[in-house]
């Protein structure tokens, strides 16, 4: 139940937040250096970072609960113990992947 709602909520966030942001980034890049600068200024503002972290977690969480859906497609693991374990695993993996991603961002930008 929680997993299903989370999968839909993160999916909706990625649609309205992620795809809108991707479009803004590309249109700004194609428009001018100034338009691109405005995008970067917004994306790297405190609210911008919060949105980016939220969207990255949404993406990894959606990926993990999506893999869970693929597992359910195979009709495997419908007993109570396994469903609980898989649900916990998607939470943990979603958070771990988000942390690894931001660690990679910091390393690639020379911050670490």
């Amino acid at each position, binding site marked *: 139940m929680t997993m299903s709602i989370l999968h*839909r909520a993160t*999916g*909706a966030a*990625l*649609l309205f937040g992620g*795809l*809108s942001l*991707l*479009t803004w980034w*590309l*249109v700004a*890049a*194609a*428009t*001018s*250096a100034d338009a*691109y*600068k405005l995008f*970067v200024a917004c994306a790297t503002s405190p609210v911008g970072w919060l949105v980016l972290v939220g969207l990255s977690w949404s*993406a990894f969480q959606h*990926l993990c609960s*999506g893999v869970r859906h*693929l597992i359910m*497609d195979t009709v495997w693991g419908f007993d109570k113990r396994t469903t609980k374990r898989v649900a916990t695993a998607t939470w943990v993996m979603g958070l771990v992947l988000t942390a690894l*991603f931001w660690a*990679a*961002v910091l390393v*690639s930008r020379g911050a670490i």
Partner: protein
Amino acid sequence: MASRFHSSSDMKRARGLGSAKAGVHHWWLVRVTAVGNFTLLLWFVASLLLLPSLDHATVTAWIAQPLVAIPLVLMILSTFWHARLGFQVFIEDYVHSDGWKLIALTALSFFLLALGAASIFSVLAIAFGAR
């Protein structure tokens, strides 16, 4: 099959046929685009991380390469298509009136087509050197 032993009208029989048999296709396309999203987003994020900078000059020079512009367009198609299919289920499950359901699905299509067209146009404009 039409049969001379049945007196019911075509419409009455059509109504009894069950689903439009499009559900499996929808389900399958969600999986196919999900795999496309995973592969292309992995490439996209890894590429951005490996770029020396994310300033305007670096990013546009990167997008201008054919082997970047092509997968980028594919990524836009895959992610937007997946979003269209996924959010359709969301609308179908939570919007119960037929009228509002139709309006919401149409608005979703227009919204994603507009954003998707803008994204693809921007990539092509950069790739073809308009910018």
